[in-house]
C-alpha cells in the first residue's frame, strides 16, 4: 500500500500543528513540575541531575589519593574527637 505524498505546504502546516501540540504538552508538564518544586523547595530552580549517592561512587571517592593524609590524621586522633566527628558526619 502506498500512501499519498502530501503537498509540501500541507505537510508544513501539519508539522506546525505538531509543534503547537508539543508546546501544550510541555506547558502542562512544566506547570506540574513547577508545582512540585514549589512544594519541595519553596521556589522554582533550574534542573540539574542530583549528586551521585551510590555506594560505588561513595566508596571510590573515599579512596582518593588526596584523602590519605586526612584519613591518617582522622585515624590517629583521640577517640573522643573521632566520635564527635562521626556523630556530626551522619547527622
Amino acid at each position, binding site marked *: *500500500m*502506498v*500512501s*499519498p*505524498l*502530501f503537498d509540501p505546504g500541507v*505537510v508544513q502546516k*501539519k*508539522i506546525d500543528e*505538531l*509543534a*503547537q*501540540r*508539543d*508546546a*501544550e*504538552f*510541555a506547558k*502542562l*508538564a*512544566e506547570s*506540574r*513540575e513547577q508545582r*512540585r*518544586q514549589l512544594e519541595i523547595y519553596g521556589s522554582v530552580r*533550574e*534542573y*540539574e*541531575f*542530583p*549528586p*551521585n*549517592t*551510590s*555506594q*560505588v*561512587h*561513595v566508596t571510590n*571517592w573515599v579512596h582518593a589519593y588526596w584523602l590519605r593524609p586526612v584519613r591518617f590524621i582522622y585515624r590517629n586522633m583521640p577517640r573522643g574527637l573521632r566520635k564527635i566527628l562521626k556523630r*556530626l*558526619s*551522619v547527622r
Partner: protein
Amino acid sequence: MKFTVLTDAHGATLDDLRATHKSLVTSGSKQVNWILLGAVPDAVKNLQRRWSFGRVKIEIQAPTLGPGEFAVFLTAGDKLQRESLLLVSDALTKAPDTEIIYGDSAHATGIKAVPLSFSRRPGWSPERLRAHCYVGETLVVRGEVIARAGKLEELALCNAHDRALRLTENATQIVRVPEVLTITKSTDSRPSASLEAVVDHCKRQNIDADCEFESTTPSVRVKRRLSSEPSVAVIVPTRGTSAEVFGKQRVLVVEAVRSLFEKSTYQNFHVVVVADTPTPSSVLDSLKQIGGDRLQILNYDRPFNFAEKNNLGAMSCESDLILLLNDDTEIITAEALEIMVAMFNDPNVGVVGPMLLFEDSTIQSAGHIFSPDPTDLYRAQSPETAGPQNLLRVQREVSSLIAACALVRRDVFERVGGLCMEFPGNWNDIDFCLKVQLAGYRAIFTPHAHLFHFESKTRIAKRVESEVAKLGARWGSVLDDDPYFNPNLQRYTNLWKTDSTSKQSLDEALSFLLTVA
C-alpha cells in the same frame, strides 16, 4: 489500622508458622488477625499459647472483610519485616484511595557471609505481571477489591501468580512501597509464573493471545494474535552513510530497508526515507530499486534536527502506525514487526520498542531507565543476561524507549505533538515517551523482537546543560524517581543493582563540612 493476615498452612511445619508468628508480633500493628487456613489443630493450639503481647489473634476461618479493612497475603514461613505494617499504614495515609500494596522483599541466600539478597521491585507494571508474579507473594489488599475478585479463602489458597492477576484486575490504585516488607524463606528470588493463571487471565480480560510457558526463565509469554493488519509507515532519516559492519563496507540505510523488505514477515508497510541533501544519488537509486512503489524519498535541506526529520516523514504519509527507525539498524527476528504491531490490540498501548543489539550481539538497548540520567538498561551486556528477577526476558512497561526503533500509534503521535523539535539530537525520544504516558498511554518494551543497531559501543551522548535543564523542567520528578526503577538501586549505572543506603556523596560531605566550618 486493622490488618487480617492470611496464610495457607497446608503442609507448613510448626517451625515455619512460629517464624511467621514471631514476625507478626513485631510488624508494627497493635492488632493483627492471623487466619491460618488448613492448619492442624495442634499447631494452632501451640501458636495460640505463644506470647504476642495480645497483638496476634489466631483464627482458622476466613472472615468477611468490612469496608476499609485490609488483608495481607503471607506465605507460611515468610516473615513480615519489622514495622512493615507501619510503612504500609504510612503509604495508605499518603494515598487513601490505594487498593493494593506490594513492596520489596529479602531472600535467604543460605550463605553465612551474605545471609540476605534483596528483590527490588519496579512500580505497577500490568504487562510484566502477565509474564510472571513480579509483585512477589505478599500483597496488602483492600477488602472491597477482594469482594470483587472472589472469596477470601479461595484467593488465599490459590497460586500467587493467579491471586495477583485476579486481584489487580479488580483494582486501579496499585502502589509499590520501595521498602523491604517481607523476608521470604525461599532462596529462589526469581518471580514465579503460572501458565494456567495467565491463560485464565487472558480469557477474563478478552486478550486474544497464545500463551507459552518458558521454563528456563520461568515466565509466560503472551503472544497476541493480530486481529487486523494495520498499515505501518516506516520513517527512516538518513544521510546515506557507509560503515563497516560484520567486516564488510555497506551503505547502512540500504541494508536497513532491504532487511525490512526481505526478512520481515509483516509486509503491510511502506517506507518514507527522509534524506539529507548530501545523500549520494546512487544510494537513493538503490533504495528505489528495493522499495519500488512502497518507498518514498523526501529531501531534507535544513540543519540537522532528528526530531524534525521524523516529524516530516510521519506527516508526509498516512498510516495507522508509525515506525521510527534509524538507518543503522537491521531486523534479526523476522516476526519483529508482527510482534510489535500485535501489542496495539491493547488500546492503552501508545508506543512499543524491541530489544536492540550491537554488532557483536551485546545489548544496545532494553528500554531506558532514569538513574537519574537516562540510560539504556544493561547496555553492552551479554544478550543471555536475564537480569535480576528475569527483568530482560519479559515484556514490561518502561518510562522510555529509544527512537532507533519504536512503533507508535499515529493518533497518539499526533496528539502529543510528535518528537519535540527543541531536542534536535538527544532525548527527543525520552521526551516523546513521557508525553505519551502523560496522555494516558503506556510504553512497552518487548524482548521477543530483536534488531541490530550498529551504533558505536563507545558513543556517549554529549550532555548539553541547556537540554538537561529543559528536560528537567518538564520531567524532573520522573527523572529523579523513575516509576519503573527503584530508589534503592545504584544510581548513574545501567544495571539493576541494590545500593547500600545512608552513604553520603562527596558533594554532600563537602557541603556539610563547609556548613560546619
